[in-house]
């Protein structure tokens, strides 16, 4: 009879390979898409709260150019590196691929939900980069347009989405959506206690 797989061993054995696969996937397929999708989503968010709507985020190489319609022609165009904003997709993919039964329907659904959350965090991260650039990086105009409080708030939000959120989000999302699986990996929940990766029909208690 075949031995039931040990989820901890499976995870530890798969993680290096998963990381390599996630890096390749991100480099070859996802990076060009995310280089455009994150700025597009961030531009939508910025313009939703902007009057008049002047911000355009244009991807050039692996940087985002901040083009405002009210910039003087010939003025320098500020840019933000975009790779750093969405490279954490590699981490989320690697963690999902390393978990047991990564291509089951449940895991794919969880990956989709997790990716949506991560994409939202990446969008917020880029948005706060741009807002901080407006609040602090445009000289006299920034001083006239934004208050000290606004500068402090945008600094903090940019810092928070830049460091703790960017690096901790993949781990938190993976853990949050896969608590039962992760607890089986760390041995805090026995396999026979936990719901399996397979979908089970819910029965109503009477």
């Amino acid at each position: 009879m075949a031995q039931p797989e040990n989820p901890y061993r499976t995870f530890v054995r798969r993680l290096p390979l998963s990381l390599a696969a996630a890096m390749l996937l991100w480099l070859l397929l996802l990076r060009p898409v995310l280089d455009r999708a994150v700025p597009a989503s961030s531009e939508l968010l910025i313009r939703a709260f902007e009057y008049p709507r002047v911000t355009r985020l244009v991807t050039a190489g692996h940087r985002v150019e901040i083009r405002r319609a009210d910039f003087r022609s010939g003025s320098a165009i500020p840019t933000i590196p975009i790779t750093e904003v969405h490279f954490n997709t590699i981490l989320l993919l690697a963690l999902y691929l390393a978990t047991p039964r990564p291509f089951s329907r449940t895991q794919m659904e969880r990956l989709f939900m997790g990716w949506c959350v991560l994409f939202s965090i990446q969008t917020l991260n880029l948005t706060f980069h741009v807002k901080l650039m407006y609040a602090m990086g445009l000289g006299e105009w920034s001083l006239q347009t934004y208050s000290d409080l606004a500068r402090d708030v945008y600094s903090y939000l940019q810092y928070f989405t830049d460091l703790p959120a960017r690096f901790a989000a993949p781990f938190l999302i993976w853990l949050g959506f896969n608590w039962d699986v992760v607890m089986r990996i760390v041995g805090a929940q026995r396999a026979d206690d936990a719901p399996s990766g397979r979908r089970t029909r819910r029965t109503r208690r009477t």
Partner: protein
Amino acid sequence: MDLKRLWTRPESRFLILFIAILTVSFTVIALQTVNDAVVDPYTSFVARMSGGVLRLLGEDASVQGCMVRSPRFAVTIYNGCNGLITSLIFISGVLAFPARWRAKAVGAIGGLVAIQLINLVRIVSLFYIGIYLPRFFSESHIFVWQSLVILAGVSLWVVWARHASTAIEDNR
């Protein structure tokens, strides 16, 4: 939403505690006084360690503040590169996980040391990538090594949580 019920669910309690500890710790290290008194000296210490390892490997390295330089290459270690982020994420995970305080203390200290060692390897390897493969320095720095260090932190947490939860089971 019933907050009390939310708190009794282990996954939501872990997430709430994790985010709270992470937010507080990152807010504290962002304060100018803490940055000047702790983060900057710590980053200089990491730079001195890296310089020491590079000298052991035969590199004519010198350290000035947070900068490690040799006649062939130079790197400046910033706040995001000193291993503190991964360490704080790891410690938040350890403190938020339901385990005994002794296991948490051992995990936090052991994890900190391990993450610093991994980060040291990262800085030294990036230094040599800068010398021999300068074209790949930026990419290696941004996504290869950052991913490796964070995943190493997650792996350490998984290994620690496995031991911590086994200890709880054994004591039941």
